């Protein structure tokens, strides 16, 4: 039921809303406690799945790559390939998808419920701007958390790759690390991955808070807004990933 005019007006509303949220961010430096509290709850929600998923993705990568590399006798480059795949691509993207599914949906549901139970109106009538006090800290917390989570994902993934590659498949431990050290470029590889996760953190947090704030204030409204957050932000992450990769590595 995608209607072009409706989508455009939604995009317009979303952009105006984003500007209001951004205008509320400077205020947060004096109330940084509001942000750390939200980062803590995002961390509690997502850290475990990021650790588990990162470990498995790293282990699978090592298995798959080792199979192909061994046909060329190039097992020594296993560490390098696992590392590049994680840092450039899988770390930012998979962490963002997990983040959208766990923290993004929870964020939409929380804000939507606060709207449906008139808590946001209640704040307004107490002369407190809900965008400043409720939305902006959650947006900023999501935006700051994702790069950290993506870094953790990549680090754990590399350890998973090491476990499978070195401990089980017999790749030389020194070669595993020295290839990484020699060939991974800090700016081209690591920083580009970090930039990706910053962009994804921005997009997912924006979609999540907007869907929550804009939802119909009923139970069905909150439920469908939550679904929209997961679907739209996952698609947006994958689409942006292509655009960013095309720009960065060309």
């Amino acid at each position, binding site marked *: 039921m995608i209607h072009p005019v409706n989508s455009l007006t939604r995009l317009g509303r979303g952009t105006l809303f984003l500007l209001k949220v951004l205008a509320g961010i400077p205020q947060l430096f004096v109330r940084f406690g509001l942000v750390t509290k939200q980062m803590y709850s995002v961390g509690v929600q997502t850290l475990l799945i990021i650790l588990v998923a990162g470990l498995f993705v790293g282990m699978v990568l090592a298995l798959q790559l080792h199979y192909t590399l061994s046909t060329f006798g190039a097992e020594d480059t296993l560490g390098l390939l696992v590392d590049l795949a994680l840092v450039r691509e899988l770390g930012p993207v998979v962490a963002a998808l997990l983040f959208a599914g766990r923290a993004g949906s929870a964020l939409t549901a929380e804000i939507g*419920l*606060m709207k449906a*139970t*008139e*808590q946001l*109106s*209640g*704040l*307004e*009538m*107490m*002369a*407190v*701007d809900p965008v400043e006090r409720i939305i902006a800290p959650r947006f900023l917390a999501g935006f700051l958390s994702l790069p950290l989570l993506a870094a953790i994902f990549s680090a754990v993934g590399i350890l998973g790759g090491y476990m499978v590659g070195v401990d089980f498949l017999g790749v030389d431990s020194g070669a595993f690390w020295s290839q990484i050290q020699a060939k991974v470029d800090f700016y081209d590889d690591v920083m580009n991955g970090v930039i990706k996760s910053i962009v994804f953190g921005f997009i997912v947090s924006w979609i999540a808070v907007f869907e929550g704030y804009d939802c119909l204030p009923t139970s069905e409204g909150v439920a469908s807004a939550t679904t929209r957050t997961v679907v739209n932000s996952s698609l947006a992450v994958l689409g942006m990933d292509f655009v960013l990769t095309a720009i960065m590595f060309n």
Partner: protein
Amino acid sequence: MAQPLVQIRNLHFARGDKIIFDGVDMDIQAGRITAVMGPSGTGKTTLLKLIGGQLIPDQGEIIVDGQNVHRLKRADLYRLRKKMGMLFQSGALLTDLSVFENIAYPLREHTNLSDSMIRSMVLIKLQAVGLSTAHGLMPSELSGGMARRVALARALALDPMMIMYDEPFTGQDPISLGVLVKLIRDTNHALKLTSILVSHDVTETLSIADDVTIISEGKLVAHGTRDEIMHSESPWVRQFVDGEADGPVPFHYPGDSIEHQLMQEVK
């Protein structure tokens, strides 16, 4: 009579195609309890949100304490809102804060009081609504009636000049209902507040209201003191006050008649 605290002039408001207010004029006198009654869905909650400046009228103006609510700059609107308390239909307590923190919230936001001052003020407000022992509870641990009393304590925290109650009586057992009725009357008189009370519980409302306004289908149907309304001859008013199902105020949502719809089914 002194200048009314709230003046509503020629108010028009529509949601999409549905006209909710079609030229309403109304005065709310300072220091009195004014009841706003009307069938479900006529826009009573909407009226309170318009007075509070959360919704913007399509036409007409609302003047509160000499200020045109919808012409104010944001900072001035917020200053005015600190003087207006509102009790929402659901209570609207912040679910992640305790009862104590909920009442302390407006104080922490808008004053520089020390923690010990805030603590005393919160406890005094809680005492006033008869819940001084409940300060450690979370909103999810409160009954509906208790939640409304906590919300009243929160609305009173900044010592407002007026309070708007949205359906404070619905879903209450007879005892908490009695408590709430008494509480609304006593706070109004003790603190010299102005109260706007939206409700369709005719008996309870008429027992405490000084003035009564009845709205239906976007128009003001009747307005007067309690005695005028209770002895009114108007069929509109009689229907509402005596609680008859059908009369000049239609009970059915406007639309095709049931006979007509049934006939179409046959064809």
